[in-house]
């Protein structure tokens, strides 16, 4: 009898535990997510900016037509899911992409979302609207887009000039929100209106950006959070310390550098941190219009002088990645694998061999130990630009190039580069979407505003177009590698390394998946509550205790 009672009691306890565990893991509504921000966002208009400082906080205000699945770490064509569009289809010759739109969706001011808003948004991006966007950094993405039409209130069609299967990738990224027709670009900069899970509340320069839950959000039961507050803290040391002290639930998107990550793990062992590529590459820009850099030999010699591993070891503690124009695997979908990369000129690990070859080229051009080429290496006067520039100068010395550092204040950097007022520059490039169409057309295509070097080769334009039209993504990948190899060997914008950085959050923040191949979505979308998963169980009153257990669904006082 006793054994029976014991068995029943044990079974009951087990069932009870299962229910408790399930309840503990289930999403819980409520709580305001507190994150810090590194600086005042330049504006709230995502279409007019090319910085994570805007996209990270403001993403929650908007929806896209389609988006990358928030639950999947690597973004690709295979992970695209519906957002404002419920379904989409190509026509027979794949030049028209028709979206069926979700009905009953309202903007934050109560006005209904219709196909006209899709038309308005892409007219803005194409530069056809009045008033225009003040800045339009992604106009080059839509080179192939002829027009967008509203076939009905809930159907919109993108008309392309030619087939472009990866067009959907551009629409799924964080830089492609849908804007309302009835709100001017000026208003969108200061008080954006969208259909997203969070409404903009306020921005105070150098203080905060606040968002509150959209109670009429079209995804039922979402968002889980009552709001998101980004506190602006300029000093990186202060904001990371504040995270360690438990004042924030979340760090700014990939703000924690590798050296700082060690400090965070030491001082806040309970925090969950992930080191991921951030879609930003450090590269060289060489002014091909300024002698002697119009000589391909000198450009090649410069590329051969670079010891990429030295940069990676010194600045990234060995964690950064080598790669070409496209983000390298495993995070990047299109980057050259190691065995292919090794065959690209300048990427061989035989540094001395590379440099010997470079010296030979320079000697052939009349330079040598007694006749060294004097150059200026220009770069932005912030650490993430300046530090690699200093190392680059050291490497160039090995091939008879004596460089001096020319630091340029941020306000002048792009203007200086735009008017080609530099010889050699150390630059950073961020990828909004891990797709060759975005990268090639933005950074390497003739006439693109962000093609800083002015690199322009008709044969490469043809290759960009060829890969853009390929439906077989595996074959496309091979062609992309070939293009990437050519770009590196042409010294179009020689890549030095791809940066990694960390994202950290408190253990009571759940449902967050760091995206690894885009700086835009690697943190921003999750905190915006766009998906089924993101949950903040709500802050504890006061500061959380230091002994929060990993894996617990809510903070506990003791891990025993």
């Amino acid at each position, binding site marked *: 009898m006793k054994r029976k009672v014991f068995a029943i009691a044990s079974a009951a306890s087990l069932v009870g535990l299962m229910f408790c565990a399930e309840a503990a893991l289930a999403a819980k509504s409520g709580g305001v997510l507190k994150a810090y921000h590194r600086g005042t966002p330049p504006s709230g208009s995502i279409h007019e900016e090319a910085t994570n400082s805007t996209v990270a906080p403001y993403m929650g205000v908007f929806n896209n037509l389609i988006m990358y699945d928030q639950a999947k770490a690597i973004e690709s064509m295979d992970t695209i899911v519906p957002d404002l569009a419920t379904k989409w289809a190509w026509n027979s010759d794949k030049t028209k992409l028709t979206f069926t739109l979700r009905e009953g969706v309202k903007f934050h001011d109560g006005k209904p979302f219709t196909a006209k808003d899709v038309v308005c948004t892409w007219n803005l991006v194409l530069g056809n609207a009045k008033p225009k966007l003040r800045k339009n950094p992604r106009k080059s993405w839509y080179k192939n887009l002829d027009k967008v039409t509203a076939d009905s209130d809930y159907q919109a069609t993108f008309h392309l000039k030619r087939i472009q299967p990866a067009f959907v990738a551009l629409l799924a990224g964080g830089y492609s929100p849908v804007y309302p027709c009835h709100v001017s670009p000026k208003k969108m900069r200061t008080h954006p209106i969208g259909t997203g899970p969070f409404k903009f509340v306020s921005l105070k320069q150098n203080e905060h950006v606040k968002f509150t839950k959209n109670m009429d959000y079209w995804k039922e039961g979402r968002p889980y959070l009552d709001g998101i507050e980004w506190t602006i803290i300029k000093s990186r040391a202060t904001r990371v310390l504040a995270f360690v002290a438990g004042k924030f639930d979340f760090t700014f998107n990939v703000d924690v550098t590798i050296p700082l990550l060690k400090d965070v793990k030491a001082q806040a062992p309970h925090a969950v941190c992930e080191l991921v590529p951030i879609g930003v590459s450090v590269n060289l820009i060489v002014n091909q219009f300024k002698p002697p850099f119009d000589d391909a030999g000198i450009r090649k010699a410069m590329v051969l002088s670079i010891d990429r591993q030295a940069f990676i070891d010194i600045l990234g503690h060995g964690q950064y990645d080598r790669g070409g124009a496209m983000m390298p695997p495993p995070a990047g979908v299109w980057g050259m694998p190691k065995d292919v990369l090794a065959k690209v000129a300048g990427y061989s690990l035989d540094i001395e061999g590379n440099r010997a070859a470079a010296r030979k080229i320079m000697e052939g051009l009349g330079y040598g130990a007694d006749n060294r080429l004097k150059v200026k290496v220009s770069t932005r006067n912030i650490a993430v630009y300046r530090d690699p520039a200093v190392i680059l100068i050291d490497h160039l010395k090995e091939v008879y190039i004596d460089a001096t550092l020319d630091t340029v204040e941020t306000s002048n950097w792009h203007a200086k580069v735009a008017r080609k007022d530099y010889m050699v520059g150390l630059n950073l490039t961020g990828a909004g979407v891990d797709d060759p169409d975005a990268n090639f057309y933005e950074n390497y295509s003739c006439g693109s*505003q962000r093609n800083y070097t002015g690199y322009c080769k008709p044969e490469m334009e043809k290759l960009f177009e060829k890969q853009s039209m390929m439906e077989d993504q595996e074959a496309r990948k091979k062609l992309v590698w070939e293009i990437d190899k050519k770009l590196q060997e042409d010294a179009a914008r020689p890549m030095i390394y791809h940066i990694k950085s960390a994202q950290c959050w408190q253990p009571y923040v759940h449902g967050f998946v760091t995206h690894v191949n885009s700086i835009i979505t690697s943190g921003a979308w999750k905190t915006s509550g766009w998906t089924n998963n993101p949950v903040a169980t709500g802050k504890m009153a006061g500061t959380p205790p230091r002994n929060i257990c990993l894996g617990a669904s809510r903070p506990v006082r003791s891990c025993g």
Partner: protein
Amino acid sequence: MGTYIVKRFLLMLLTLIGISIIIFVLLRLMPGNIADIMFDSAGFVDPAEKAQIEKELGLDLPIPVQYFHWIRGLLVWDLGFSYVSEMPSVDELGPRIPITAKLAGLALFFSVLFGLPLGVISAVKQDTALDYILRIVSLSGLSLPSFWLALLILMFFVSTFGTIPIYLDPPDNLWDELVLYSIPAAAVGFRSSALIMRLTRSSMLEVMRQDYIRTARSKGASENSINYHHALKNAVLPVTTIIGIEAAFLIGGLIITETVFNIPGVAHFLVEAILMRDYPIVQNLVMLIAVVTVVINFAVDMLYAVLDPRIKYAE
């Protein structure tokens, strides 16, 4: 006295006009403007759009015309709009000024509270162990970089108490305000108190060697009476000058403290505005700092006449 005040007022006005011209011209001499900053965040510069933005903001007008517009606005209390936030300058600056004023006031209070008495003690106990300790402490106050000290304080709080004394939300009441600002104020005040302490000590030592001090001592006055009633009263004049200078410096010089402790005051805002080439904010804020500085200097000069009856401002 009345003539002196009028003359000083006219001098102040001339000083302010000079400062307005200098800041206006210097800002425009700096390469780049708000349009360049705007395009920086987009990663490129569109010359046509940039020209359009400059036209909208009046930056294409001749510099004397831009200056005239600004001064005319100042005279009618139209401080213009922030280029960055597109909000009225008054709305941007208004809430920030009291924050810095409180921080500066508290810092000054701490610096005088500790600097003066410690300076007296150090002078009175000259060449004793206490004197040496105080001098070492004051030297460290002058030598420690303020950003380093501020960060050390934050790290100490985080590792010891698990909290961080930075500004995250506006304080609800006076007590919360005091608690919030006291630590950064103490960090700033440490340096100022070191300066005041050393000057007070030096000034006191000089005064205490005077004959009238020896006379007072021989007449049987107590040490306290000698130190505070006779000596300090005469030693405090140069210290008053330093306190005045420190007060003026604090208004604009709290940039590091405000940055590290994340306090949304005017000093930090000014630096951000300069980096962003937000001309209306920079110009108006610099003028405000200039006004405060000249007024404080004037007040210090008037205080001399109160502290030292021998000083008379007369023709």
